[in-house]
């Protein structure tokens, strides 16, 4: 008995297609598919809240109830819609936000919940499900940008590494990761200007190696690679070629100036927040502007440390207050900046974590994992903003109206991006997998 199906010829073909074997002969120097796409493709920015953000202290306030906690609600620019007092700048952008207050999921463990929210599926035997960024960037790319199609800022991958990778789509669809080192503390305490933390290192050819010589070297390398790779169509070898090809293409493009955050006015950088999340949001705008279809920015901790910052079992209110301040500056400035540049209509912004937190406050002034009734947010392109969708009960413990599943959320995101959620990719076990669970349906009234 085999417990893992044998790889079929079809899978070999799929693997080859996903990897380096499909490269044109002039692999290193391949030109962009078309200079300019006829219509602007849509882009997606995922703001990922590591640890599971509390809905009760952000977007689903329960004023007057014991579960409500000390935060006060704040009126927004949309009548009837209230956010937490610690999200004042987002309150001014409320017209762009659709607050989905009736998320109803099942996973209460970080690892499984992170996997489910980020891939749309539960870990199942041998199938390597790809992360959202890999799935959507594959659909959204037009091949025109010399930058990687999926860039991830500061992901904290430890608990659920598979939820951050390209899975069966293969190395070609893996993210370029920046900012996952720890920030350097400023001499006097606090966080130093973090622009270097989001730079891509080693983009320039070594001193003394001119372009012609670099091409000659790459020619030699290509010859060595084709001999070795032809006999070993395995992930490590395919991924090596794919990474080199993308690296060379990136090195030789003007678009890498996206990473020069110091080209932006200091006041705008201040407004985003001089921290990894804020500057990550600014980078996201610069990347989207240059045609990158998917960027994710993780908010892990106030000080930029890699951790599950929103996992507030203790001391929820102090922590959430400071996280909210970081979130508010970064996200609100991003929306305003995208809007100003005419990019917001073509850019979907998703805000989510792996689950919400208990409306009940525990004895450590904390809130625990809570998948039963919680909040995510869609904003920008394709979304009818200025509304709350669904409702929770007065104590926040139950969904009172229109429960939304993970699949529903992802199907709606696909809808906003103009992507067919029922398209299929061939998986590593030779079974086609739809982008989003076919049971899911687009949430009514959210698409604009």
């Amino acid at each position: 008995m085999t417990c893992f199906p044998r790889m079929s010829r079809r899978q070999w073909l799929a693997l080859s297609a996903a990897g380096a074997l499909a490269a044109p002969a002039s692999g290193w120097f391949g030109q962009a598919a078309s200079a300019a796409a006829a219509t602007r493709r849509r882009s997606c920015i995922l703001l990922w809240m590591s640890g599971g953000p509390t809905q009760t202290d952000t977007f689903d306030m329960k004023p007057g109830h014991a579960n409500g906690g000390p935060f006060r609600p704040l009126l927004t620019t949309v009548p009837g819609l209230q956010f937490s007092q610690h999200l004042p700048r987002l309150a001014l952008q409320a017209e762009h936000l659709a607050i989905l207050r009736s998320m109803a999921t099942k996973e209460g463990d970080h690892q499984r919940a992170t996997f489910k929210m980020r891939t749309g599926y539960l870990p199942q035997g041998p199938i390597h499900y790809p992360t959202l960024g890999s799935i959507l960037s594959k659909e959204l790319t037009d091949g025109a940008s010399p930058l990687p199609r999926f860039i991830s800022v500061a992901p904290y991958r430890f608990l659920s590494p598979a939820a951050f990778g390209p899975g069966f789509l293969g190395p070609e669809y893996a993210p370029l990761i920046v900012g996952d080192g720890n920030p350097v503390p400023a001499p006097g305490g606090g966080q130093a200007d973090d622009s270097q933390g989001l730079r891509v290192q080693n983009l320039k050819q070594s001193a003394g190696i001119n372009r012609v010589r670099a091409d000659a070297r790459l020619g030699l390398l290509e010859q060595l690679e084709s001999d070795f790779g032809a006999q070993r169509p395995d992930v490590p070898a395919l991924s090596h070629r794919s990474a080199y090809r993308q690296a060379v293409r990136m090195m030789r493009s003007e678009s890498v100036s996206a990473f020069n955050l110091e080209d932006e006015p200091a006041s705008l950088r201040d407004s985003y927040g001089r921290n990894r999340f804020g500057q990550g949001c600014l980078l996201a705008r610069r990347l989207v502007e240059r045609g990158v279809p998917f960027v994710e920015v993780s908010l892990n901790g106030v000080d930029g440390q890699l951790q599950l910052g929103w996992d507030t079992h203790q001391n929820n209110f102090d922590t959430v207050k400071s996280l909210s301040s970081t979130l508010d500056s970064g996200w609100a400035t991003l929306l305003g900046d995208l809007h100003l540049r005419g990019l917001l209509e073509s850019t979907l912004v998703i805000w989510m974590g792996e689950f919400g937190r208990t409306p009940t406050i525990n004895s450590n002034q904390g809130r625990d994992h809570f998948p039963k009734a919680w909040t995510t947010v869609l904003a920008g392109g394709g979304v009818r903003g200025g509304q709350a969708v669904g409702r929770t009960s007065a104590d926040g413990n139950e969904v009172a109206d229109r429960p939304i599943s993970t699949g529903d959320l992802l199907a709606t995101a696909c809808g906003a991006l103009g992507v067919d959620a029922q398209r299929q990719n061939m998986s590593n076990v030779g079974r086609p997998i739809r982008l989003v669970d076919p049971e899911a349906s687009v949430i009514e009234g959210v698409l604009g």
Partner: protein
Amino acid sequence: MPRSPIVLLALLITALSPPVRADDVSDLAARIDRLIEARLSAETVTAAPTADDAEFLRRAYLDLGGRVPRSSRVRKFLADKNPGKRREVVDQLLDSSLYVVQFSNVWRKALLPETAADPQARVLVPGFEGWLRQKLAEDTSYAAMVREIVTVPLTPTGNPQQQLQLRNRPSPLAFYQAKQIKPENLAASTARTFLGIRIECAQCHDHPFDSWKQGEFWSFAAFFAGMQRQGRGGFLAAISEVAERRELEIPGTDTSVGPVYLDGSKPLPSETRGARQLLADWMITAGNPYFSRAAVNRLWAHQFGIGLVDPPDDFTADNPPSHPEVLDLLATEFSGHGFDVRFILRVLCATEAYRRTSRLTDPSQGDPRLFSRMAVKGLSPEQIFDSLAQATGYVPTAADRQLAIPGRPSSPRNEFLELFRDESSRPTQQRTTILQALALMNGSFVTAATSLDRSRTLAAVADFPAFGTADRVEALYLASLGRRPRPREETWLVLYVDGGGVSKDSRQALADVFWALLNSSEFLLNH
């Protein structure tokens, strides 16, 4: 005629040496091969042929010694006519300091996975790796090593400041510190690491797939009930233990539970020794099937890239081993040979399965879990840097020899370890990132290593007067890929170098060749 004293001495040594019969290794390897091959023929899979000497040597060096062989070693091995030379080189490697360093990395990653992801946990590395190196150098058995971890005395250790000063002292204490001294973390890690059992999902709810219940989880955690962390101080918080405490309260409930082993049995009420002693006694016996199986499976996964049970620490009912008989056989022999890790490694390296080429030679070789050809594995960060250093003649500095600690001035080695750190994937799924490719193409280390002024290997090869161009190309191949160029490669590259490349300078053209070799997947992967 009286025997000479030397012969007598030799006889005496033979009599005293461990009870490994000379043919134990090949006997067991042959039995494993028969099981693997029976499965291959049942599935009508054609196995790949045996790897040539150069492919085997490079693989054995990387797996057991953590870096590529020097070119002089390759030349000697290729010239050696002794049919037993593969076995010999494995024995030499296992007796060398390379093995001690490589396997202290391997065990550290298995036992302290936290240090891969959490930079703060890395302060724990030096003390723990120092301890592992000591144990490996002393040839401590696996069982004794694990017993020492599970039973290490926890005397009160003072404040974090004192801890910080003591952190580099060799000790297995880091196992506890990395788990933040929490009984539930320690229980989960102990079960997963030493028994291959994942019980942690039962921490919060009954396990959806397996038979562990929440109560069983906390009863197992009760073996660590006496542990206490004092005050703050992150990973270096002070620890103490009330050894006789046996009751643990399930958080969020009013229920307290006492220690119960995972097989449902309990320590005798008359038992007065510390709970961790009792746990070690139960865990580490030839009679506990989980203990040996988890260990040999980990070693198999290290050598073959994929465990017999895979992922290697997930022995659940819905994740059966690919070759249950091989797993049982190895587990039995492991405990029968005094839990000797090196014995198992000798056996694995002696199997035909390990000696197969990694080339795909037949379309039937698709399923990696049948071991019809060797898997292509990514290198660990340490393997990448140490191989680059070996190939380019880089002499490590004092800073390179220090283990990477956040806040310490960086060294080329530590920068590589950081850049190539891979917290996620199995070696057969390991991916090169764009950032790694950029560092290897343009970074200062490879730039220096391929510069005629600064690279020892390159300068020596380019300037050795007795060499013709073909010799120079061959020398670079041996240093990097551990093999001679194939005739077609030689012709093409000699032509390139003699033509001087684009610089019209044959020495610079040789540097181009070396750059390409060091950037190739053949160099950067274990195959």
